């Protein structure tokens, strides 16, 4: 921004226009023009304090403008995340007057509990299948929708619609569809002459039931993002490549995928974060059961904290979740950056 010397503003007009957020900040700044001679072109030594005042006023205004958001983020995101780590070395039930320090006991309990291994594995399967499935499917469907064929607009709309539904409604809809007697599952299996499994109430299938429902909801979103990204790819690059004789699979491998790499990294990071937090579908469809067969870390955090009131265990599980997500995000950003650099 060019900080030209401002012509002397009409004081009557400018004074009340100070920043409301920084009322104190506006005061000195607003006075300046009045004290300064209007016609005299300020020499350097005089411009400097004015510039400094202005900078200070801007800083205070800046603070005032971002403060509400920043405070909300600190109070409701950073502070809870840190305090959660603190709670993970405590034992507490919400009721006792104060948490009791137990060191790493919660973590030891978690790691030695065989059902926690199951929960971790479930989280891994649920997240992995839904993220990989939605990205592979999304790239396929996205490139399909980016071709010039009829009905793509309608397909795009339909694909995105599940993303608009509340997870609770998606969960309840799929719960009904998976009903072995009255749901679409019975119909689908009857096409191949088989009986539908009892998806949500048997431990062999429950994890797959929630994974399929969640992937269905996520797939449309990913498809539409991929579709948009593919349509935004620079066409001249394709023309140049076509002139060089590249086509089909070669184009896909050497041009489209590298160009889409940043999007893929973005979709996998956000996909992992949201799959790891998926809760409503699980809560509605299986409540993590039967047993722990469809329990993920996010369900476990809720169950331990708000059904069993075991805050220490819940916080420890949440901290494990945080650690895993941070590591994965870090790795993805690193790999994504390196690949992007290699390819360019």
């Amino acid at each position, binding site marked *: 921004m060019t900080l030209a010397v401002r012509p002397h503003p009409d004081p009557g007009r400018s004074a009340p226009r100070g920043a409301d957020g920084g009322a104190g900040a506006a005061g000195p700044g607003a006075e300046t023009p009045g004290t300064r001679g209007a016609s005299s072109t300020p020499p350097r030594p005089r411009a400097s304090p004015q510039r400094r005042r202005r900078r200070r006023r801007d800083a205070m205004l800046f603070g005032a403008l*971002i403060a509400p958001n920043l405070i909300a*983020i600190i109070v409701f995101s950073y502070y809870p995340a840190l305090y959660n780590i603190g709670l993970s070395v405590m034992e507490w039930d919400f009721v006792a007057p104060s948490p009791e320090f137990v060191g790493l006991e919660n973590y030891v309990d978690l790691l030695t509990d065989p059902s926690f291994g199951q929960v971790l594995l479930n989280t891994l399967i649920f997240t992995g299948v839904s993220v990989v499935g939605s990205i592979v499917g999304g790239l396929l469907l996205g490139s399909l929708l980016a071709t010039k064929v009829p009905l793509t607009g309608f397909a795009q709309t339909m694909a995105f619609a599940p993303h608009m*539904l509340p997870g609770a409604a998606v969960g*309840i809809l799929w719960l009904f569809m998976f009903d072995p007697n009255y749901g679409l599952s019975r119909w689908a299996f009857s096409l191949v002459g088989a009986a539908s499994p009892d998806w949500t109430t048997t431990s062999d299938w429950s994890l797959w039931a929630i994974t399929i429902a969640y992937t269905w909801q996520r797939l449309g979103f990913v498809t539409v993002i991929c579709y948009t990204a593919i349509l935004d790819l620079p066409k001249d690059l394709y023309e140049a490549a076509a002139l060089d004789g590249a086509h089909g699979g070669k184009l896909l491998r050497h041009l489209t995928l590298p160009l889409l790499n940043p999007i893929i990294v*973005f979709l996998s990071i956000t996909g992992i974060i949201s799959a790891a937090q998926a809760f409503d579908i699980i809560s509605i469809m299986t409540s993590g059961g039967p047993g722990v067969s469809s329990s993920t870390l996010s369900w476990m955090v809720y169950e331990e904290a708000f059904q069993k009131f075991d805050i220490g265990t819940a916080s420890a599980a949440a901290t494990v979740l945080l650690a895993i997500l941070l590591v994965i995000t870090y790795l993805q950003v690193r790999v994504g950056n390196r690949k992007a650099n290699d390819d360019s």
Partner: protein
Amino acid sequence: MSSLTLNPDPASGTPVSSGASGTDHAVVGPRANRGRSRGPRRPRWVTGLLVAGVLTTIAVFLIPLFWLFSSSLKPHGEIYSWPLQWIPTSLTLENFTEAWNSAPFDRFFVNSIVTTGVGTFLEISLAILCAYAFVFVEFRFKKIAFALIIASLMLPGHVTLIVNYITVANLGWLNSYAGIILPGIASAFAMFLLYQYMRTIDRDILQAAEIDGAGHVRRMLTIVVPLSSPMILTATLIVMVGKWNEYIWPLIVTSTADMRTLPIGLLFLRSQEGYSNWGVIMAGAVFVSLPMLILFFLAQKRIIGGLAAGALK
């Protein structure tokens, strides 16, 4: 490549220097230069295959949605007929009246509207103030502040759940609108969208206004906000959908039926009806979903465009 390289880390990928012209960062509009033709003519069978693929795509997404609506409109009993009754023999609203009467859905609706409306208004207001500051106000530690806000996107909600519950309980906000709304008003995503958009605003207009003696507040309200209104609308829609669909937080922070929101009401309905009355439960799911679906069909370009802009930038 360089023109398309997106740094997946938004904080470092977006230089905050306000001197940049910003034209190279034009936000992807819903239909920004979207040419479709590419390559030579296709053989006919390939086109056929592609159309079949598109139809399959539609089926994958449409069938469950169709099933939802069709089941909710079926007369009692038809839900359980075999072979499957895809299209109800007669359309009836009895599932809807029964669902409406078996739970305080009017109250759920009011709660959802209030919490979504107020929460969205607050979040978007914070996002506008914040984005304006990052684009138009000078400050030495801008980058750090920006990173601090954007990095909060990486914190999973489940990590903050327990402590936020304790905070809200200590403030005496359990089972209240304040308790449902306030922990959710912090904005990183909407702020980022608006930030990207405001960067493309022509600075000459603002400088002219400044020379005319307009302070920051006036410049924000009379120039930046109106010029950003397309993206503000988009961000509002996206934030609104998120709040309407929110499940876990209202679930733990409310405890009585009169404070529940619609998605939680669905759970309430299911525990009442068990697995015995799917038509009624599907009608409840339609109640919950319909407002956002209508919103989407009215404004899909904006919603998709906004989310794509968030993803592609």
